[in-house]
């Protein structure tokens, strides 16, 4: 199974389940959680069932493409189910079957791992899911986003597609993964990875980045105030990415660190509050829609 085939199968599974399949979000994010389809939509009473691939950037995790498992740019497969269905764990296990992992034949474990994203003011309770000892998924019941309680609670299922595919293809390095028909992950991504590593660690103009941070921060706060939640949130994400870049450059002293995180959290929180207000003013439109979700819908196909 090639990397892209595996992703197709996940898409198909969650589509059959009843999720909307979204396309990757087009602002740099550190994780699928930070895309507005998760951060903003996790709040409020409206149901929300979506799945999407999300390219994720974590500049400090770069290893100049020399480490078999660590990259500054990789993918997440993100699923949000709100409210979390009672059979959510069974559904998740079924999704593994869809990519050729028969749960009965393996040792699948749910190992406590609570999650926290300080820049989003978000936290959740859940597990890392182990397949024969390898972490393949992060499974979280969101409790808070933007410092606001989630009610109802959504389940977030975040697959690590590279890791999963390494197991499926029995490869020891991410670079050897077959993307499709003999073309490898290295063929696709290695130059990208290397150049970004040099940029992140050695070249990034930190003065420019500091200036950009201030500009984006100011703009985000200004337009959030005017009710333009999504542009404001995009700018908050930009601040977050710039902060990560500065951090990778070692340009943020430890004492400043906490205050930067606090500043980003304030932007994100403002967006979250505004978003809820806006949805409420619209009487939470998705409450009116009938979602047809569940394994039975899949079986009936």
């Amino acid at each position, binding site marked *: 199974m090639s990397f892209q085939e595996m992703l197709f199968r996940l898409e198909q599974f969650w589509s059959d389940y009843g999720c909307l399949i979204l396309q990757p979000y087009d602002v740099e994010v550190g994780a699928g959680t930070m895309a507005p389809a998760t951060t903003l939509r996790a709040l409020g009473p409206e149901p929300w069932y979506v799945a999407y691939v999300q390219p994720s950037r974590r500049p400090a995790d770069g*290893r100049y493409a*020399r*480490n*078999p*498992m*660590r990259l500054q740019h990789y993918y997440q497969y993100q699923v949000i189910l709100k*409210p*979390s*269905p*009672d059979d959510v*764990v069974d559904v998740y296990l079924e999704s593994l079957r869809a990519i050729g992992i028969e*749960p*009965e*034949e*393996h*040792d*699948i*474990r*749910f*190992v*406590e791992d*609570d999650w926290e994203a300080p820049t989003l003011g978000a936290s*959740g*309770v859940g*597990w890392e899911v182990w*397949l*024969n*000892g*390898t972490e393949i998924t992060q499974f979280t*019941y969101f*409790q808070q986003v933007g410092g606001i309680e*989630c*009610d*109802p*609670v959504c*389940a977030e299922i975040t697959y690590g597609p590279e890791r999963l595919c390494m*197991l499926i293809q*029995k490869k*020891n390095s991410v670079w050897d993964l077959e993307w499709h028909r003999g073309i490898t992950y290295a063929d696709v991504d290695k130059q990208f990875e290397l150049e970004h590593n040099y940029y992140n660690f050695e070249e990034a103009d930190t003065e420019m980045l500091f200036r950009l941070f201030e500009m984006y921060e100011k703009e985000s706060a200004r337009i959030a105030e005017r009710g333009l939640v999504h542009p404001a949130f995009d700018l908050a994400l930009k601040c977050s990415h710039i902060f990560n870049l500065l951090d990778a450059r*070692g340009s943020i*002293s*430890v*004492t400043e*660190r*906490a205050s930067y995180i606090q500043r980003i959290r304030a932007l994100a929180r403002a967006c979250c509050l505004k978003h809820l207000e806006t949805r409420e003013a619209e009487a939470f439109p998705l409450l009116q829609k009938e979602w047809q979700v569940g394994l039975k819908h899949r079986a009936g196909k």
Partner: protein
Amino acid sequence: MESKERATLLLEIGTEEMPAGFMKEILDQLQERLTETLQELRLEFGSVRTLGTPRRLIALAHEVALRQPAEQRTVRGPAKRACFDAQGNPTQALLGFARSRGVSLEQVQFVETPQGEYALVEEYDEGRPAAEVLAEALPALIRSMTFPKTLRWGARQMRFGRPIRWMVALLAQEVIPFELEGIRSDRFSRGHRFQSPEPFEVRSPESFLDQLRQAHVLADPQERAEIIQREAHRLAESIGARPMIEPDLLEENVFLVEEPHLLLGNFPESFLRLPAPVLVSAMKKHEKFFPLQNAEGQLLPGFISVYNNGAPDKVREGNEWVLVARFNDAGFFYDEDLKQPLEAFVPALGRILYQQKLGTLLDKVNRLKRLADRLARALDWDPPQLQTLLRAVELCKADLATQMVMEFPDLQGIIGREYALKAGEPVAVAEAIAEHYEPRHAGDPPPQSQIGRALAVLDRIDTLVGYVGLGYMPKGSSDPFGLRRATTALIEILAEEPDYPTLAELVQAGHDEYREQKVMLKPLPALQTDLRSLFYARLEAYLEERGVRYDLIRATLGSGWDDSVYGFVQRALLLQSLSDTPDFKAITLTATRPANILSAAEKKQIRAVASMNEVDPTLFEHEAEHQLYNALQNATAQMEVLYYRHDYQAIYEALRVIDEPVNRLFDSVMVMVDEERLRQNRLNLLACANRLYLALADFTQIVQE
């Protein structure tokens, strides 16, 4: 209606996978809560047992009465004067009381009590069926359970350790019906998630555990633990190895599986080039495997894995794959880290926060350097010793900036030693880097080398002064920064160091260095008070562990001419060894005499001065005064020398010499005379004697049979 019938009660709370670390406490809690509930419901029962796996909490109560016993009781209502108005008509108070008890007004009686006349109702409670009262009580019991961390899930408002997915509640064969936010109790349980996923009907509480066993669930944690241990040893012995099974790791594994299976895996021998602690940590912390060693304690290229499900070959293949990936990762970090010498990591410490207000790790290292300099001077070390210590200080935190320690935080110090040796640092420096975190766990020995001990002491003094100086005193069971542990470690080291400065001196030095860096801590006197109470509490525990009687510990901690830990420990051990001798009993009796008279005088606002200069021999009227004065003069000079040599045995001998003159004075001289100058002079003389006793112990604390 009285029923002697008994039956077994079963409660199973089916959840998604509960954190292994919660389970032990939760099962104890469930047992307690159910016991309390049954008592509150007045239901007689035999015993309550709890069992569990990651997916279920089970309580079995045996011989539960099927009915509450009948009971005759008197219920008191409002006072009679509140029951009728001026016209003699019943008030709301009376009507309400009658209504609430379900009786007519005629059935309400009035009875005289010591507090006046009151309304009363005689009630006969025939007792209700157990199933009925349990159906009301069990939801509250489940809701009342507490966890280290809880969550909400779906659209529900309740909180629990993990989502509840089913509940079985049976009394005998009958379901105890109740509901928690849409989750209903019934008789359907579930087996192993993968091997027996279909719900099954529980035939009876008695058959439940067997039915679970059929469904591949071993509910009893004890049984799972035994299987894991037995199998681990068997598998290891099959290749002549021994499994390294720590109790915590065993318990974690017990609560990660519903049915334990074990396998023996291997990894390529080439990884043995990596430091053994790295390999062990990757196996235990990351994968929860048991590492293997040979009879000589050397690590072998294999492991034992406990698993919950799966085809053994597939699980083994996966386990081996992930371990190789982990080791490759570690090997990558190892090779990357070793591209530069350990000292190259020191500047990066300026970017790692030690504590928000206490600065970076580099700030800490700089404080430690100055403290090291002061300590070396206090200990009269020669320049090469000081140089070694300073080098160790310089490098002691450097490994915290390495990739390896970021990946394996529990290897701090151990990696530092490894890298220091690779960089050609002196062995004494390398050892001290590893040792300065010792003792790492309760019961471990303190550092062996002189340099390591010095570094360990200074690091902890800096930590304690910093955190307590910011107001973080450990409270109750909460000690998030491990300050108690740090204090105990400090005591264990200092107990063997006669020449080290006293606690007060060490604390002051630590405080000075923070001030030098302009870090605001609480003022020194308040800090000394806080730290003294922390130290004394730990010293008490330490001495108790070393077998010193409690009153002797009090006597030790309430005395002494300074607060040297070595002194406290030596004096306490000496008192313990002497405590049964007749001489000691005699000296205890004598020593309490001046102490008692001084404290009686103090109550009358008469304060004595414990200085020989404040005693005027020309005011003596009795031979006994002269004799005691001479004895004290000899003893004082002698004891001051002995004290700073920590020669407490000799001090004890010196105190025995003044025993007789003290007693003679009390027997022949009236101390509390009216003449003020005479009285003050005698009290001062006794205060000098008392001061000498206090060099060894506060004898008034000692319990005499």
